[in-house]
């Protein structure tokens, strides 16, 4: 117990606030709806935010590096579509996954090259990429949903390991890997230097361009992982997948304590908590039957409160 208290004390203040709110929402919801505090609901709740959760891991690095990647909202459906198309035309599933990941890596690479060569803000570059990809997705699919995937694929997709679905498993593994890497791996730690003070990072001999390239490529690739998983979950793919997903991903990262205005600040554990928080808010709205119109208002208010607590109230402590 002492250890728990110590861990909570040592935590980032914003994370403490979010954790507190999570507990409050859980208590209120549990009193409100008998189905809320069930394993089934928590599974569904988590699965409702896994794609965003996975993408948020990589987005954290992008934001810590001082950039942003809006294009994931286009990479996600594109990857789902490519995966579905390849599987439907008889590719080996794993080969198809590999190709999708390579395509995504290429997109991340292009994002970074455009940013580097044109010297424009990554927000603009990746927004252009988002629009391009959304158009491309429509063009590839002709606006139709791609379904009727081979039974073998659907069977594989529906398999569970230790009672966990693929997306759940993927998230747990990726979150752990990302957490460890962000604390221990040299290149991942250099992202914090580059974000914190790009000029000094360069003076210290860090190849900052390599760092940027890495974060944008990883961001695209995790969006592709989410897209592949979407194809597996829905047994189909459509260009309308992932509407506004980039904003939900960025919100999760921001709620988790990363700073969108200055680089170098943010953590994987914060982002995981932020994802959990958003997952619970979405679930709570559905469970309580409160009109979802208020969902964005509510999320926005919570974000403001969390940021105010971090930057204003706890600043001096």
């Amino acid at each position, binding site marked *: 117990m002492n250890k728990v208290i110590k861990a909570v004390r040592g935590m980032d203040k914003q994370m403490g606030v979010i954790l507190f709110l999570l507990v409050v929402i859980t208590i209120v919801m549990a009193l409100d709806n008998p189905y809320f505090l069930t394993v089934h609901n928590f599974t569904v709740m988590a699965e409702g935010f896994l794609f965003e959760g996975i993408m948020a891991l990589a987005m954290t690095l992008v934001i810590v590096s001082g950039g942003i990647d809006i294009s994931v909202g286009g990479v996600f459906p594109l990857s789902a579509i490519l995966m579905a198309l390849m599987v439907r035309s008889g590719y080996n599933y794993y080969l198809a996954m590999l190709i999708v990941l390579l395509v995504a890596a290429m997109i991340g690479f292009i994002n970074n090259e455009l940013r580097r060569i044109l010297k424009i803000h990554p927000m603009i570059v990746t927004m252009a990429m988002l629009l391009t990809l959304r158009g491309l997705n429509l063009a590839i699919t002709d606006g139709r949903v791609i379904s009727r995937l081979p039974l073998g694929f659907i069977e594989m997709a529906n398999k569970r390991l230790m009672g966990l679905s693929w997306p759940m498993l993927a998230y747990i593994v990726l979150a752990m890997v990302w957490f460890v890497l962000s604390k*221990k*791996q*040299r*290149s991942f*730690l*250099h992202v*914090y*230097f580059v*974000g*914190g*003070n790009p*000029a*000094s*990072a360069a*003076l*210290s*001999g*860090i190849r900052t361009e390599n760092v940027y390239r890495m974060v944008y490529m990883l961001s695209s690739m995790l969006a592709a992982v989410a897209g592949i998983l979407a194809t597996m979950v829905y047994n189909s793919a459509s260009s309308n997948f992932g509407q506004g997903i980039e904003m939900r991903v960025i919100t999760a990262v921001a709620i988790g304590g990363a700073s969108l205005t200055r680089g*170098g*600040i943010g953590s994987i554990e914060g982002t995981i908590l932020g994802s959990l928080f958003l997952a619970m808010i979405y679930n709570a709205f559905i469970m309580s039957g409160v009109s979802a119109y208020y969902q964005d208002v509510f999320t926005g208010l919570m974000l403001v409160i969390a940021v105010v607590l971090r930057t204003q109230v706890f600043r001096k402590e």
Partner: protein
Amino acid sequence: MREAVGIDKVSKSFFGNKVLHDVSLSIKYGEIHSICGENGAGKSTLMKIIGGIYNSDGGTITVNGEEASLRTPQEAYLRGIGIVHQELSLADNMPVWHNIFVNREITGPLGFIKRRDMQQRASEILEKLDMRVDPRAKVSTLPFATKQMIEIGKLLSMDVDVLILDEPTSALSERESQALFDLLLSLKKQGKAIIFISHKLDEVRQISDRVTVLRDGRLVGTLTREEATTDRIVSMMVGRDIDEFYPPKAKRRDGKIMLKCSGLSRKDKFEDISFDVREGEILGLYGLVGSGRTEVALSLVGADKIDSGTVELDGMSFRARSPRQAVKSGLCYLSEDRKQLGLFLEMTLEENFVSSSLERVTGQFGVIQEKQVKSISEQLMEQLGVVPKRSEALAASLSGGNQQKVLLGKWLSANPRVLIVDEPSRGVDIGAKSNIHFLLRELADRGMAILMISSDLPEILGLSDRVMVMHEGRLKGILENTDLTQEGIMNVAYGEVGTP
């Protein structure tokens, strides 16, 4: 003594502008070698060439007698050369140990870092420098001077033998500077070569074994410790003899009291501060970083709160709710950090000039009257001697001294009655500094009341009519500036009892 770095006929041009002309210089192990020169003389460029940040256009550099190619900071490090930059190269958001070992992390397989090892070694390095800092502390939580020491520690951990310090003391207090000098002297004894750049000639004279002076990108000469008197250095720097550094004192001291503060307090910042400034007078406020001097100024102009106490401006009770209101009432504050607070670097000079007095140039319907903007800025540039004389130049393109002048001009265009200037000549070369000093005196003679905050003692002594001393948030005394000495002021600052 063995030669560490030999510089032979090094030249460098930027956009066709030659900033270094065939400079030759020899740096030896076991010496502290100062480089002096006005801003734009080429000091920093030369250092950056040695440090591998810029590449020279011509000439050769030898390190330990061998010709060396120094195209990146890495190559320089490998040759044992390291720079402590003017703008620190530490990442504020990261812990001390990692800043020391950044990009040279001790890693295991897959690039996994060995945190414990590095923390251990970092604390060894810090101990060697006699610093009591937890290597796990975030850099942002440390004072500036500590950061500078950490930067030096970082270089030493790389087995650097040639240490370049570019203006290391510009943001340090007297005491912190002394600690730094002690460190440099002990490093010198260990046989390191130290290249030291500073505008503060008394520092240069205090620690240097040799002093090299550059002017307009050319080597003027190298002086030994004995030869290097202030006058000699200065005349080499400016190319003429300067008899008079400072303008004469106030013509009349019986002006109206323009600003009067009684018992000002702000929790945790300053306490019970009372003083007044008269028309035509320059009141020097001496204090180190953290003495509360800047905080007093910020509170006066409404950028921060005042907890208790009263302020009178021109005989009327006054409490600024915002800097904007203060400007309107004729109280202007010229900030210490021209990059962060005062200048709009990405805007043109004329835009900067009128930015604090937009009402004056705004016609009907809120339209800015270009003609008036032009005439105001041209008049100011003439008066201040801003170079280049193009009002549409970007502020960012100017040298530090000229930026400072523009900042002054920005507030002058608002026609203040009371002007608070904070470190008016920090990071500015001697010529420009003198220019600013004479300008301030001229403003005072025209009837402005000036409160000048500075931690530069010669400046305080040279310019002020009276000197007010603050230390750790308290007013230690207000002294008439007749026969005042640096030691006298220091005694008041650190003494137990102030003379009211």
